[in-house]
Structures are given as C-alpha cells and as structure tokens.
C-alpha cells in the first residue's frame, strides 16, 4: 500500500514542479536571456573579453566580491548573538524581535545614507583620521544594517527548533560554554548559516544604492557598472557582457552555498527548547541592536517630526493631501504598497513552497536545478531583469511590461528565494523517524503530512512569507527599471519623488512616509508571523 503511494508522490512532485518552473521561465529566464542576447547576440565572447580587458571592470569585480564576502562575514558575526536571543526567547518575544529587526529592510537607501551621514557628523566620523564617510567601512556598516534581519530571523527560527539536550549533555560532560557552542551548536546551525549567508552575500553583491551613496562616486561595483553601461552610456553590449560575468559569479557562489547547506542535515526528533538566556546577556544584546539599528532609524524619526524650528505632526497630517509632485496622495501610495506586498507574498509563498518541496523531495537533478535557479534572481542585476522584461514581455500573450501585475511579480522574484532559503533547511531537518513513528502509530500518510511535515514546514514558511512581504514593501528588485503607471505608485516611489524637489515640506513628508513604512512593516511582519498562533511554541 505504501509503494504506489511513493511513486505517486514523486510523480506529484514532478507535476508540481511545473508551476515554479513556468514562473521562473517566463519572468526571469526568458527576459534575462532576451536582454543578454540583444546585447551579445552574434558577437560571441568578444564583448566579454573586451570589458575584462579594462582595469575598471576587473577592479569592480574584485571590489564587489571582497566587499560582499566581508559584508556577509561581518553580518553573520554581528547578528549571531541576536539570533541566539531570538532562539532562546518565548515565542511571543521571538515574534516581536523578529518583526522589529525587519524595519531597516524597508528604508530607502537614500534615507539610510542621509541618516548615517548625520550620525558620522554627530560622532565626528565624517572627517579627520577616523573617517567613515565615503569609505568601504560605510558600505559594510550599511550592509550589516540592512541584512541584520536576514540572519537574526532565519537563523533564530531554525535555532529555536534545535534540541537543547545535546548542549546539556556536553555541559554535563564538562565542556565549557564556548566549546559547547563551537562544537555542538555551530555545526548544527551550518545549513541555516549557509542559507542566510548566501542571501546576505547576494544582497551585498548586487547592492546599488548603498555603494553609490555611502561609498561615494569613486566606488564601482559590478552592479553600478551594469547600470553605467546600460543607462548612462546606452552600451547594451558591454552591459550584457558585465551581466554575464555577474551571473557566472553568482552561479558559482550559490552552488557552493547550497552544497554547504546540504552538507549535514541536523535531524531532530522531539526537541527540547533551550532555556532563556541570562538577563544580562539578553539586555546586552538588545542594547547593541538598539545602537546598530536604532540610531539611524531615530535620525529619520526625528526628522519626520521637525517642522521649521519646532516639532509637530504637520508632516504626518500632510500625508493624506496630494502634493503636485505626486500623482496621488502618499496614503494612496501606502495602500498600493500594502496591496502589492500581499500579492507578492502570496505568489512567493505559493511558488516558494512548491519549489522547496521539489528541492527536498524531488529527484536529485531536479532538486539541484531548483535550488540554484530560484536563488539566482536575488543575485541578478535589477537593470538586467527590468530591461529584459521590457523587451521580452512586450507582446500577447506575455504583454506584461506595463501591466500592474508586473509589480508584485517582480517583487516576488526576490521574495521566492527567501521562502525557499528559509523553508529548505527546516524541511530537511524533519527526522524521517518522526514520520515513521507516526505511521507506525497508525497515522495515514496524509495525516503524517498534516501533523508532522506541515507544522514544521510552516515555521519556515511564515518567516519566508514575512520576508517576501518586507522585500515587496521595500521595493527590492527590478521595478525601478520598469515603466510605471501613476495608479500603481508605491510608497518608496512616492518617497523618491518627494525627495527630488527642493523644499522643507516635501522633505518632511518624505520622512513621515518613511516612518509610516517602518511602522507598517513591523506590524505586518508581526501579524503574519502570528498567523500560526501558538503552535510554534510546541517545538
């Protein structure tokens, strides 16, 4: 009775694989292939050799890679204690921390850069011997600021599900705290560290605004070079050549990361959660979070209340009235953003969950292809995807380039990797013995799935879903390189437009809008992660 079901299951998985494959094929592979072909078609490898011959390109590749490696390492180290706090808190506190740390995610780079610049000035770091402005340190710091949430959220949630008895045994056998962490905890975190690390790496590798604004105009990265060729110089051939190099680098990195992630599935039967951390440790952690994430945010909040020489709510009140610079009131833009974020999240969860099942349970080659393919969009230049969509999705039945659907679709391209990268490590960890035990005890296969797989998988899923929501609200992805209709104005777009005309009222309103965005994402992430209610506590 079990056997045909097994075969059915693998068939079912192969059939389900069509959905994510079609999504990726239509909205990523086809557009990217089109734009690369447009640039390189007929010229073969010559343009690639040509850009590689230029010192500027080689410097950009080198700088991009090492700053991304450094950003990733730094983020992992700085955020790991935060993840420990999340892992060892009550489910409610865990959700609270997870939603608060997501806030920086939605802040537009220009504002963060402005806030950092102000902090540098306040603390005297803008000049002199200990200067941060326009240095690589400013870039690294901002990458930690933006990506802190990635590590805290995914590693923290995974960590919470680890069985603490192993650590207890180690301690009983005389191992010290540090040794226990190093030899018992860390190896079991490896899959999720690899998963979170690869996301941070890809974000830093393709980071655009942070590099331009905080790094200053001297810093060139692969991403800014693609932009320079495609937009400033309209040299689509060289842009495509650099884009190919970027794709190759990302492919290599993701292959490595998924191998690490797969390396040692730390299976867990019934986990005993770790006891909460000591109060002092916990508060030290909250303190460091407050300094790192809180200070720049505080600058933005302060500016949103400053009206002339006093403080007031004027800028917030103004959000509801349309200024000439915007095609709609800022509140309308906020509403659009929320709507798109929900659609993007739903899409990302649908595609991402199916894809995760395929990665974990599908045939080996299919699993590898999905694992790689669905993560690549995160490491692909927004220019490449956006311009690709313009030339590829221009005719029925794929006439999407100016449709309102393209907005959530482009956002979910970035959301899907988050869902996959948070779900796969969790799914892999489900102990086959747990399933066996359930079926021995008489549970039907469907019941096993419902009561064993589903609750465990849904933990990864909600964390990924909330990420997909935040990614959409923060407007990561190709939408800035797609033409936009006034009725699809999103909050970040409104914010940029407010900032592009001089005038204190407009700037103040932009700050108020940013604060509204931050509040919105914190509340939404908390609500999304509360959907599963208390069930998380049972792990």
């Amino acid at each position, binding site marked *: 009775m079990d056997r045909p079901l097994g075969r059915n299951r693998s068939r079912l998985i192969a059939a389900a694989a069509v959905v994510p494959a079609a999504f990726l094929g239509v909205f990523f592979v086809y557009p990217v292939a089109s734009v690369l072909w447009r640039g390189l078609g007929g010229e073969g490898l010559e343009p690639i050799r040509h850009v590689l011959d230029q010192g500027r390109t080689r410097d950009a590749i080198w700088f991009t890679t090492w700053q991304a490696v450094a950003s990733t390492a730094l983020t992992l180290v700085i955020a790991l204690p935060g993840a420990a706090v999340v892992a060892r808190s009550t489910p409610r506190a865990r959700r609270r921390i997870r939603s608060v740390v997501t806030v920086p995610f939605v802040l537009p780079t220009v504002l963060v850069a402005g806030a950092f610049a102000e902090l540098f000035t306040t603390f005297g770091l803008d000049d002199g011997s200990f200067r941060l402005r326009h240095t690589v340190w400013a870039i690294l710091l901002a990458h930690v600021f933006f990506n802190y949430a990635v590590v805290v959220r995914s590693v923290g949630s995974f960590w919470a599900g680890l069985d603490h008895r192993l650590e207890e045994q180690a301690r009983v056998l005389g191992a010290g705290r540090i040794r226990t962490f190093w030899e018992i905890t860390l190896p079991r975190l490896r899959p999720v560290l690899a998963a979170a690390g690869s996301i941070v790496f890809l974000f830093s590798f393709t980071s655009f605004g942070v590099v331009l604004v905080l790094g200053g105009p001297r810093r060139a990265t692969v991403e800014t070079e693609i932009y320079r060729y495609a937009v*400033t110089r309209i040299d689509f051939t060289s842009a495509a050549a650099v884009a190919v190099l970027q794709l190759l680098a990302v492919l290599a990195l993701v292959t490595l990361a998924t191998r690490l992630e797969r390396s040692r599935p730390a299976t867990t039967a019934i986990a005993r959660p770790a006891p909460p951390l000591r109060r002092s440790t916990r508060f030290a952690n909250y303190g460091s979070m407050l300094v790192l994430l809180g200070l720049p945010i505080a600058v933005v909040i302060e500016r949103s209340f400053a009206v002339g020489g006093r403080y007031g709510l004027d800028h917030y009140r103004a959000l509801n009235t349309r200024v000439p610079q915007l095609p709609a009131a800022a509140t309308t833009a906020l509403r659009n953003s929320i709507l798109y974020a929900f659609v993007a999240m739903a899409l990302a969860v649908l595609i991402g969950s199916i894809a995760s099942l395929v990665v974990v349970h599908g045939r080996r080659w299919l699993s590898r292809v999905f694992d790689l393919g669905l993560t690549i969009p995160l490491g692909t230049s927004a220019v490449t995807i956006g311009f690709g969509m313009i030339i590829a999705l221009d005719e029925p039945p794929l006439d999407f380039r100016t449709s309102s659907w393209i907005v959530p679709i482009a956002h979910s391209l970035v959301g899907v990797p988050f869902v996959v990268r948070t779900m796969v490590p969790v799914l892999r960890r489900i102990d086959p013995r747990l399933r066996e035990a359930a079926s021995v005890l008489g549970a039907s296969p469907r019941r096993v799935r419902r009561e064993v797989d589903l609750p465990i998988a849904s933990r990864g899923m909600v964390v990924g879903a909330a990420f997909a929501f935040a990614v959409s609200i923060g407007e990561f992805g190709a939408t800035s390189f797609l*033409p936009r209709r*006034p009725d699809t104005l999103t909050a970040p777009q409104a914010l*940029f437009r407010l900032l*592009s005309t*001089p005038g204190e*009222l407009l700037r103040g309103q932009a700050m108020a809008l940013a604060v509204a965005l931050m509040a919105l994402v914190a509340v939404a992430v908390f609500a999304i992660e509360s959907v599963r209610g208390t069930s998380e506590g049972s792990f």
Partner: protein
Amino acid sequence: MTRPPHILALVLSLSLLAAACSGDDNAPATITLVTHDSFVVTASLLEDFTAETGITVELLFSGDTGQMVSEAILSAGNPLADVMFGVDNTFLQRALDAKIFEAYESPGLGVVPDNFEIDDQHRVTPISFGDVCVNYWTDELPAEAPTSIEDLTDPTFANELVVQSPESSSPGLAFLLATIAGTEDWEQFWTDLRANGISVTAGWEEAYYGEFAAGGGDRSMVVSYASSPAAEVMFAAEPTDVAPTGVLLDSCYRQIEFAGILAGTDHPDAAAQLIDWMLEPAFQSDVPGSMFVFPVSNEATLPQEFVDHAQLADEPHMLDPAEIEANRDEWTDRWVEIVLG
C-alpha cells in the same frame, strides 16, 4: 477531412477584431505618454484634453531622463507609449540616432521662439526649458556670493561646493557641459576645483539634502536648478517670501525638454493632437508650478512665486547635441580621471 467549424469561426472573429482595432484612428483613442519621474501635470487639465478631443491620455513614468531614453531605445519599433515627453538636449542626439521618433511639425510652434527648435526635421517639439546652475545657501556663504563661474576655484570658497558625478546624475552632466562651454580650459578648471576641495556625490538628493545646507549639511553651494529657490519658497515649512537660496547665473547650463511621437505608434493622429495641446497656453502655464521649469510658449503666464524667485540666465551655456553625443563618453572619462582619479 473538414476543419472543425468552430476554429474557423474563431479565426474569423479574431481577424475581424484585429481589423477593428487597427487603423481606425478617427475613433476616440487611448494614448500613452511616457515621461520621466519629475513629470507633473494638473489632473484636471488632462481631463479637459479628453473632453475636447475624445482622447484619453495614460501616463507612464520611466525613471530619470537617461533611463527613459534607454528604455525607449530598447523598445524601439514596439514602443512602450505613443508620445514621449522629457528628452532634453543632453540626451537628444542619442534618441535621434536611434530613430525612435516620427517627424511631426506642430502648428502650435508659432508661439515658440526659434532658438528652442533645435531639430530642423521636427522629430521633436520643444515644450519647456530650465537652467542647471550652482545654488548657494545665502546665510551660510563664507563671503559675498560668487558672481562668475571662475570664482568657484577661489580659496574663499574652499570646501564649499558639492557637485554630482556626470556618470550617474543628469544635473551633474549638465554642469560638466556648462564648464566645457563656459570656461577657458575646462580640464584646468576642474583640476583647480578639485584642489579647492569640492565634494562629489552620485546623485542630486545626496548632494542637496546630504551635504548642502538645505538638509543640514556643511556646504553652502550645490549644483541644482535655477528654479530651486522658487521651490524652497513654495514648499517652505513656515510661509515666507524670501528664498533662502540664490543662483550663480554665470554657471548655468540650459536644458530644453522636448516631446516627440514614438515611431511605431498605432495612433499617430491622436499623438499629434497631444503634442499640439502641450504647446497651448493652458498646459504651458501649468508647467512652471508643476515641474519647476519654464514654458517655451510666449503666451504662457507664470505663477507669482516663479516671477519673484525663479531665475534664468541671460546667457546660459549650451552645446550642440551632436557635439555632446560625439564627446560625452570621452568627456566623462576625462572628468573621472581629473576629479576622482
């Protein structure tokens, strides 16, 4: 063997539908205007246009001017829209070379001074213009306001000016062109500027709100627009009639913004009507208050804040679009070597 009749019917009705949709340009149409993110028009004006002509206008925003032109070149032949507004004289030649426009000579050009009509083949129609100039925050200046572009290299103004990189910013590029057209030896000028401690940012926002006094920064001079002082008055937190900023009129580069019919449109007549309308007094008089640029029409009226606070250079610097296109990459490369190298 006979074909199933329903397929035939489907093909027939589809081709009828296709025939009905194409060609007939007399019927009320919906056309799309693609423009840059700074485009603003009073909504009721577009409704008036629809009421007059039966043509509905949908807007499409395409980032900044450079991005808009790139996207138009990428989609040449199957354009994103029917009409483009906002291509300026710094990007014009590139757009013309890529043949993205269809020629159209609007009868409305009679009210436009000849010097705005740069393209004698009428592939584009001038609509608005404005100057990119050095602005200063009057209260923060270390001395009397500068009066000539060469003053910027004077040690009195050391560490006061912030500019944008011409590689990533359109006012940055315009100011570079102003120096090429307006100084004896622009390479020497930039060498001196660098020695005088200029700061360079990637974009306008970081310059204006990050380093310039407007956002609390410590620099008193920035590359911005000649109309920026008017915007500072119109959007001041406390009502005022004194602009906090002034303009160095000797440093201005004139940008003319054009509209054009995109080649490949299905509605060339409706597109032409939109261009005619953009030259009419109603739209032309809306341009300054909405977009902080000047209308090209002699018949437009300016809002009071504009008359009082927006400035225009008497002799703005300008270069021929073809010359810009032929040298732009070389100039910016050289600029990078001098200023950032």
